[in-house]
């Protein structure tokens, strides 16, 4: 992966394709159904870093789980590398990172990273070599023999990222991976994730609540709205690659943060009902 320049975007290079996806859940109690996602169309190209952002309950995690075949769509299709998501999962094309590291306490850090390779019945020597390589990538080489519970939260999450990369996944699915970390650690982890992404060239789908995080990390930000969950806006992040701490101080960065924020707020306004909300919308529309 080159360090600079715009992302490559030939149409044939689509990794994830969601077409006309609806997802409904049975509502508790009254036998009705809650529409979690409606009419989702989304194409993600190889090597992209796409962030899903939106208010709580907008279905961004559900969309991520649909891509990863941890749940199925009610209507529509999700394909990964041209195959149904289900086949892609059986083909082990995913790396998952959750909000919590969910490491196995009874395994050392190194053996946690080896876990997916064990499931794939890879030989021991290969597993160990790969685990060491990945721990070096996330800068945890000295901690291979530690137990997960002996590491800090940020370090544990880095182990989880190393584990997710073990299978060399076609696509890395990250569900608010840094949501439980403090702001300082989070910014450091953002930089580290970008470095890993640029080194590995993996396609990343990333769910977050944080606008600055979304802008800093992504090549594209997908803005979603709640009830029903829909994609309302897709914002290209044209900041150059090789982003660093300074990127957060660039004029264009602030413009994009504002753009994402307004896009989210526009959604809120559109959905607001009643005179109080209308009043607020009118006031916000007044002086800039």
């Amino acid at each position: 992966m080159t360090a600079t320049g715009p992302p490559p975007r030939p149409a044939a290079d689509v990794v994830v394709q969601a077409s006309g996806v609806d997802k409904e859940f049975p509502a508790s109690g009254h036998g009705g159904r809650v529409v979690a996602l409606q009419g989702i169309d989304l194409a993600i190209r190889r090597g992209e870093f796409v962030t899903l952002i939106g208010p709580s309950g907008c279905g961004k995690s559900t969309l991520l789980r649909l891509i990863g075949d941890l749940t199925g769509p009610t209507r529509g299709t999700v394909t990964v590398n041209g195959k149904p998501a289900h086949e892609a999962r059986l083909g082990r094309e995913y790396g998952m990172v959750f909000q919590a590291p969910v490491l196995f306490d009874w395994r050392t850090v190194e053996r946690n990273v080896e876990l997916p390779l064990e499931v794939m019945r890879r030989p021991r020597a290969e597993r160990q070599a790969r685990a060491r390589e990945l721990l070096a990538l996330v800068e945890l080489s000295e901690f291979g023999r530690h137990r997960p519970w002996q590491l800090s939260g940020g370090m544990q999450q880095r182990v989880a990222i190393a584990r997710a990369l073990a299978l060399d996944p076609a696509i890395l699915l990250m569900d608010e991976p840094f949501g439980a970390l403090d702001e300082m650690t989070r910014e450091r982890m953002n930089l580290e994730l970008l470095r890993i992404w640029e080194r590995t060239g993996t396609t990343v789908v990333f769910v977050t609540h944080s606008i600055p995080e979304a802008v800093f990390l992504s090549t594209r930000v997908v803005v979603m709205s709640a009830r029903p969950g829909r994609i309302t806006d897709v914002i290209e992040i044209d900041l150059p690659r090789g982003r660093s701490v300074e990127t957060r101080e660039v004029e264009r960065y602030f413009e994009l943060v504002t753009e994402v924020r307004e896009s989210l707020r526009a959604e809120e306004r559109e959905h607001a009902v009643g005179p109080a909300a209308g009043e607020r919308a009118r006031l916000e529309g007044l002086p800039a």
Partner: protein
Amino acid sequence: MASASPSAERTAAVAARDGIGRGRRTLGVVVLLLLLAVAWEGAKWLAGDPWRIHAGLAGIAIDYEHVPPFQIRLASDLNLPHLWTIAAAFAEPAQRNGPPLLGVLVQAAGFTFLEAAVGFAIGAVLGLVLAIVFVHVRLLERSLVPYVVASQTVPIIAVAPVIVVGLKAGWFSVALIASYLTFFPVTMGALRGLRAADPRTIELMRSYAAGTRDVLLKLRLPAAAPYIFTALKVSATASVVGAIIGELPSSIRSGLGGAILNLNQYYATGPARLWAAILVAAALGILFFTIVWLVERWVLTGRYRPEVEPA
């Protein structure tokens, strides 16, 4: 990057705490035993039978008589022998010209221990297998768990003759009776433990397209280990009880159950000997529990998050 020292410090702190904990625990056990002895003899002092010492020690004649202020039948020498009478009973021969009772009881305890250990092993395996089946086949869980529970409501003393007489398998039928008491805690504990894994870890395994076997061996069983060991500790003591009770209807006289049955018949003339057998049975249960506890520590320590003790 953070250094390794925080975790090293934590490990040291845990070790120090464990050291203090062990000392305190031993002290606690000693104090508790002393209190029990004081309560026992205190009850006899207040409400037992009168006693007197009439002896000469180093040329001084000792003649002391104690008449307790109250008389309660429970504290009589027949029901609650003096601790020194029990201690003496260990040293006296069980039968005329036979070996001392202690030797007889320890040998009997060894026999019962083997029955209990075999029963424990069978019960533990059966319990674990049942739990694994139940976790994977919901239908079987729903239909069979009520029977598993019902099996434990039947008094073991009623089931024992059926197995002993029906199988005619000698000590092995006793082991089977012990396993009847053993498998239940293991089934329940393992069932809870096999479901204890974080749901996201199950999703993680799904994302690797891991099969049922991998999920069981790499995730569910290791996550269940602390629960299974808790159940095994309950089962260890239960298997000793099961073995002793199993011996009663059988014609086996080599175990503790046989010894207790025998000494029961001579209770009126030698209650201290039955108490001696009770103490040995209790010690056997504690010994078995301790063995399982040691194995648990050996397996779990360092591999699992240390328990946080309340401040």
